[in-house]
């Protein structure tokens, strides 16, 4: 991989990391539980994508596999938690 491409990937990772701060601020404000849930989904997807990007950058597919599993587990946990919270609102 050329050094130009490495630099571009580095900058992209830094930008993605900084963009995690936006949903973290939204989770901090805590108005509605569903907004907090949305920020959680956003953060977990973003962090998994950072892991996938790093696996390409370092050419380490072990990290890539863990990133893929983090994406799918994050979505499953989100569905589970949303279902529990929805039933809490109905009761």
């Amino acid at each position: 991989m050329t050094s130009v491409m490495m630099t571009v990937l580095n900058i992209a990772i830094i930008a993605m990391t900084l963009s995690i701060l936006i949903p973290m601020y939204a989770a901090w404000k805590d108005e509605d539980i569903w907004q907090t849930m949305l920020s959680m989904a956003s953060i977990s997807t973003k962090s998994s994508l950072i892991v996938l990007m790093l696996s390409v950058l370092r050419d380490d597919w072990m990290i890539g596999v863990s990133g893929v599993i983090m994406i799918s587990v994050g979505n499953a946990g989100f569905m589970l938690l949303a279902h529990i919270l929805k039933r809490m609102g109905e009761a």
Partner: protein
Amino acid sequence: MMDSYLYIIIALLPLAAMMVVFQTNPYHALVIRGVLGAIAALVYSILGAPDVALTEALVGTLLAITLYAVAVRSSLVLTIGVLQEEFEIEDQTLDFQVLISAVQTSLDPYYVRVKLMPYADLKALDQALRQQEIHVKVYGNTISNAKLDEIQIKSYQLVTRLNRIYEIIKPDITSALVLLQSSDLKEAQS
């Protein structure tokens, strides 16, 4: 220069941990715990421990959140025993709904929600309170006025067995028709 993004990503971990620690609402804390789990998995995997990251994602985020959600759901509930006739929403009088919403309002700062549980008659209601199935029982007494015999006033009575609930609810129950008393359980058991 090459690994300068590492410092930014690692700085997110104490930030998320602080958010969990300073969150007072248990439901919000539950969701932010999920955020902490995602960021922790990210940090572990960029520091070269994909096995730890995988464990954090599977156990720390998925299992811990599910168990914590079940715990919060089953513990932060105040069960109010009511008679069967008051249980259905269409059968409830306005006074009763005002009373229940006043109880809910007084419990809101503690993130406790109110759940109604129906019982067939007064005896079953009393039995449930003594056997600690419910925290509070509500029953109405119909006061028939001799002069105005068409108008029947229903006065509601709340009985709780817990002193703390009595202290929390008491300032918010302003209606004159409601009398709240801590029933003496020791006397009842003998």
